[in-house]
């Protein structure tokens, strides 16, 4: 356990824990667009930046991204100093110039009082903020079907060679975790299309509703030691099944006792 000061309040945290996790626990609102608990911190959006100092720094302070800054005893944190707010506003302002039609950005920018960009609007922009969540999550799942290509201002997320990615299993994790809903997919009755690939969806043998893609189920049963039969029913029906069997068990126990 270490103790640190956040916005004038003494707070306890685990040694080496990332500062953002502590802020979240303490319900201190700090924006963070490239962070997700499932993947390693990345430090790309820079919105989670905070001002830190220490008694021995004699007034000198530093700006660090809280998502990947490990806490240590005696740390003094200010999550909304003037400079920090200005930096967040600048980032959101830059985002507005790059993604003029993105509602998620507009909303967050609005919270920080930025309604119109100071800068030149980027032509041909899109809504991908290059937070890297999609690629990192895909990578984490073990597929690495998509990645960022290029560098600098022209960087973008794409499958290898910009062709339908052979390693994609249609799990939709990229799209579901995209903070700006940039990655599109089409869900039809028994099929889903993402990254220009079409996948067959499994149907629940009990209720007939579609569940996950066949490729995804195969992958999970092969690599995560989950029995293939597990995917034959949907989560909803599984819960129902379980409730029913729980009832039976309780009944059975009662019978046994009497």
């Amino acid at each position, binding site marked *: 356990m270490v103790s640190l000061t956040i916005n004038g309040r003494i707070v306890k945290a685990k040694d080496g824990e990332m500062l953002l996790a502590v802020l979240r626990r303490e319900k201190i609102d700090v924006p963070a667009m490239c962070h997700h608990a499932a993947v390693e911190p990345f430090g*790309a959006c820079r919105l989670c930046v905070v001002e830190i100092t220490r008694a021995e720094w004699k007034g000198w302070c530093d700006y660090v991204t809280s998502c990947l800054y490990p806490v240590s005893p005696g740390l003094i944190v200010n999550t909304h100093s003037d400079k920090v707010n200005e930096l967040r506003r600048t980032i959101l302002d830059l985002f507005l110039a790059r993604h003029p039609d993105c509602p998620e950005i507009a909303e967050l920018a609005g919270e920080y009082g930025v309604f119109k960009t100071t800068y030149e609007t980027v032509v041909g922009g899109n809504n991908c903020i290059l937070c890297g969540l999609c690629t990192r999550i895909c990578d984490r799942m073990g597929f690495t079907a998509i990645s960022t290509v290029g560098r600098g201002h022209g960087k973008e997320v794409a499958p290898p060679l910009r062709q339908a990615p052979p390693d994609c299993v249609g799990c939709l994790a990229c799209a579901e975790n995209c903070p700006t809903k940039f990655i599109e997919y089409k869900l039809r009755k028994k099929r889903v299309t993402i990254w220009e690939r079409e996948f067959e969806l499994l149907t629940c043998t009990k209720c007939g509703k579609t569940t996950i893609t066949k490729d995804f189920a195969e992958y999970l049963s092969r690599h995560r030691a989950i029995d293939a039969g597990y995917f034959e029913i949907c989560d909803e029906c599984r819960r129902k099944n379980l409730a029913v069997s729980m009832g039976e068990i309780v009944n059975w126990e009662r019978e046994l006792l009497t």
Partner: protein
Amino acid sequence: MRLSSTGQLTQLRTKCQAAAKKHKKKVLVCCGPGCLAAGAQKIADRFRTVLKQKRIAGFSVQALKETGCHGFCEQGPLVVIEPGGTFYTKVKTRDVEEIIDRSVRKDEVVQRLLYKDPRSGKSIRDWAKIDFYAHQNRIALQKLGQIAQCDIEDYIAGGGYAALAKALTKMTGDRIIDEVTTSGLRGRGGAGFAAGRKWRTCKDVQSDTRYVICNGDEGDPGAFMDRAIMEGDPHSVLEGMIIAAFAVGSSEGYIYVREEYPLAVVNLQKAIEQAEALGLLGNDILGTGFSFSIKISRGAGAFVCGESSALMKSVAGQVGEPRAKYIRSVIKGLHDRPTVLNNVETFANVPVIIDRGADWFAKIGAKNNSGTKAFSLVGKVRNTGLIEVAMGTTLRKIIFDIGGGIIGDRPFKAVQTGGPSGGCLPQSQLDLPVDFDSLTKAGSMMGSGGMIVMDDKTCMVDVAKYFLGFLVEESCGKCVPCREGLYQLHRLTIKVSEGRATEEDLSTIEKLSEMVIIGSLCGLGKSGPNPVLSTMKYFKDEYLAHIRDKRCPAGVCRELITYEITPDCTGCMACIAVCATHAITGKKGKVHTLDQAKCTKCGACYAVCQHDAVLVS
């Protein structure tokens, strides 16, 4: 032959020196990057052929050396005859025979090939007496240009690997680190971090494995110091690395070489093999039981790969993108192990420090900035080339004494140091001593040692725009302040250069720059606004001229200039021939006319006019 003791190394040295003494003369043909581009290889080949034919008494072809960069690239191809240092410039293949007949066989000089001092007009025979060399102080580049490029025996004959022998047998790791610390050696790759302190931290971290990496990525446009060393004196880098490895307790090293330097890869590889064959690298070095191996890692062709965390990812086979380093790479570097990363020139200084002692080294240079620094001096300066000066030498001395002043005696305007994210310093800073701290204080930085001299025909807004454009391309694109911020800074400088900006845009530039500096993840973004900040600091008037008067004083920014044909026009029709948009019309012998509506301001007419009849305003 493997050397299994330091005694055997000394014996080998004596043998090499004796062999060298058999030749009465040495012919050094510079085969550095500049001279090669000017045709040096053909000259070296010609020397070999003719020398073989002529069979001169007391001279064998072995005394013909293809060396690394001698420095004075501007005058290349260079040929030096030692002893005596007879220095031939701009040598052509047809001069070779004459040089051999007069300067190798006899002791005469070929007068017309000597360097002529532009001030006194006198020819100078000995290179060491030429201003360009006389004001230099060579430590890291000591052997460069004096020995054959890839010849370990030449290196050993000149005292090479003696420092390694001393380190391995007479010093402990701690002693070496203390020595390097006392010498005050600071990293030559940019940030100027104390090398000894870095080595100490690495050694003190608990770990089973440690790595030593040499940064040979050299991405600054126009810079070639590290390239020259890697190609021309690779053993000095290896020796420095082996000493570092022994000091910190590492058994595995890498040299990360920029993609665009194939010859450096070849020469380093050769040098590694030569050192391994002699038992100076590999298992049980010089019979001391210490083992260290070096592998070459090819760069990924991006400027940002020179940044330490990106470099280490790239060496490990991942995408070279920086990561945040709240834990420094010296503690958690390659494969998460403690890693010493130093620049090529930093390592090249190490053998000299061990050999001659920390106190000797510490006396050279300036306070807290000991030793020397190599620069590639380029731009509008007369003597371009590779130089090394004591830290604290003034910009004036470098540009005017060594560099010989501005081409065509035009006025000096600015000097850019520190690579793409460095800064531009004006006339008023000419007496600034060149060292890490002074440059940073003046708003520029040392960087890895590029130095670009600019004359009055350079527009500082255009310069800022150029470097920002480079950085926008080279940013890895990971973090927002750098990717989007530098992009917008670039757009803003374009706005100024096109005369569309307001004074408010200048304060936007200043504010955004500050945010990019504090908000960016790695050094590229953190130093990225330097070009625009330093030019705004020292050349504010020029920015204001673009904004208030819609005028580019240097006559560079296309949108703000017009070309006119003056009555001096002789009607030669040269400009009519080069104008792609047919904006110029006229008859032979009559003053031509230029249609402003059709002019795209490409400047072709200005460049081609022999009669100064095209005016830029």
